[in-house]
């Protein structure tokens, strides 16, 4: 079992969600996130004063998958969130110790699916 944590551009969320759904990956959490990285922010101006905004808005996806779903999920994420520009985001994959579905008490592989 793996936990996929992906930071992507907010505007690409809709496409990513639709594409995941098409691959039958329907269970995910979405959290708003602020962050900075290689994109180095953008400028805003307010009454003539230019200000640098370097904490950018991103969304963080958390998807728990069984091992056989891992590559498929990653492929979808990369394909749909990629625009080719700096700031497309990053994906982290970590080992998942366990997963419990509260309603039934199922554990492990069944609980994820």
């Amino acid at each position: 079992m793996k936990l996929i944590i992906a930071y992507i551009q907010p505007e690409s969320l809709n496409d990513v969600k639709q594409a995941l759904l098409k691959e039958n990956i329907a269970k995910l959490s979405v959290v708003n996130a602020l962050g900075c990285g290689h994109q180095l922010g953008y400028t805003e101006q307010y009454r003539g004063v230019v200000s640098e905004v370097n904490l950018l808005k991103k969304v963080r996806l958390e998807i728990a998958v069984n091992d056989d779903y891992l590559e498929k999920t990653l492929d979808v994420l990369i394909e749909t969130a990629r625009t080719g520009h700096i700031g497309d985001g990053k994906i982290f994959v970590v080992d998942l110790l366990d997963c419990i579905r509260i309603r039934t008490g199922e554990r492990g592989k069944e609980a994820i699916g």
Partner: protein
Amino acid sequence: MKIWKAIFVLVLLFFGFLTVAFVKEARQGGRENLGEPEETPIEKAVGDVLSLLGLGAPLYAGEAQSIPSEPEAAAETGSPEGDAPADAAGLNTLWVLIATFLVFFMQLGFMLVEAGFSRSKNAVNIMMKNVIDFAVGSLAFFAVGFGLMWGLDRCAFCGTRFFLPTSADVFAVNPQLGWTFFLFQTVFCATSATIVSGAMAERTKFTSYLVYSLVISALVYPIFGAWTWGGGWLGKLGFHDFAGSTVVHSLGGWLALTGAATLGPRIGKYSPDGRVNAIPGHHILMGALGVLFLWFGWFGFNPGSTLAVTPSIGYIAVTTNLAAAAGAVSAMVLASIIYGTSDATMTLNGILAGLVAITAGCDVVSPLGAILIGAAAGCLVIGSLLFVDRVLKIDDPVGAISVHAVCGTFGTLCVGLFAADGTGLFYGGGTKFLRVQLLGAGVALVWALGCGFVLFLAIKRTIGLRVSRHEELRGLDIEEHGMQAYPNFDTWTTV
């Protein structure tokens, strides 16, 4: 940036032109004597070039905004000789000026409706469009529009005099109200222009919208206005559009249709499989505030169009209010039947539908007729919204096409049915009046669709009408205006 440089040059030329006119005016005897129509006509710098004829005797002096067959307005608006009592003139001026300010207030209403019913990432853009189209429209209407609309002379198509009007000009058009009349016409023009921004919200290039608002305020609206109110052929046929269901609302609404159709839908509005998705607005209270502002402003829009203090202004306010109320109730009930809940956005659109529909006939229909018109418009707007959304697949974020074009046309036809002075079909007047109304509404349709498609396709081919996919997804606020509407709130743009 390139477009902005071109606009900069154009603006510079415009103001340079005005400066030349001003210098010429100043040389010829200083300041105009404001408010004194007897003043010798000041030769204008451009008047000589633009006018086909010099300043002859005014042809349409004293004509009210309504057609001459409307007895109260014609009798009260001051005779062409200008011998109305001074206190009546003062009272009329005061009333029309107050009405003008109320109509100006509708600009706020449009801004809030459109901003509330679209996403937070585009709020600054909507605000800028509604603010700047009034500014551009005011200048364009002063320079060109007023002359085209009220300067009918030799040419039957459009006016040919009164460009960059002076006191002598505006008092020649309306001997009693003068500049008050001019300002009243300006805010009407701005109302028509600003309708379109809602239908084109969230995806239109800002500079392209500037070009559009210049053309509609300077040409499209004034020329159609000349045909109906300015003494042109439609008005002479007996076409009755008291305060502008057709001239202001249908015209703006049909232009909105062409704009939205040329642009195409927002990303995410229609799925590839043809499914229709909702893109909810970000602030329903703000939208409701806008609708109530519009309702408030309509008490200037309709009763003010008498252009005089007459007993009918209270009557017109009542029919206006009843139609709005009936529209709200009927839309709410119909939405409840269809969706099981009293849909707020549909109810709000019902109010606007009732107001738009009553505008043409608010002076000639009975209060009961007003209620029927409003209630029918409230139902019609829901049907039309669904039709435009699902069948035509034209993405209209705020429903401007249904509210203004469809209900405006409907209201115009209703005058032919509900006119209580015996000319309406339901009062035994036969179909003659109805046929004239049908003609007028049809001409507005053809004129607006023709002008709209030519204009928007021309803009699309030259400077481009739509922002890039990236800009649209990110939001027009940051990309076009460099700021956000709600910088300290968590507004992630994920839709």
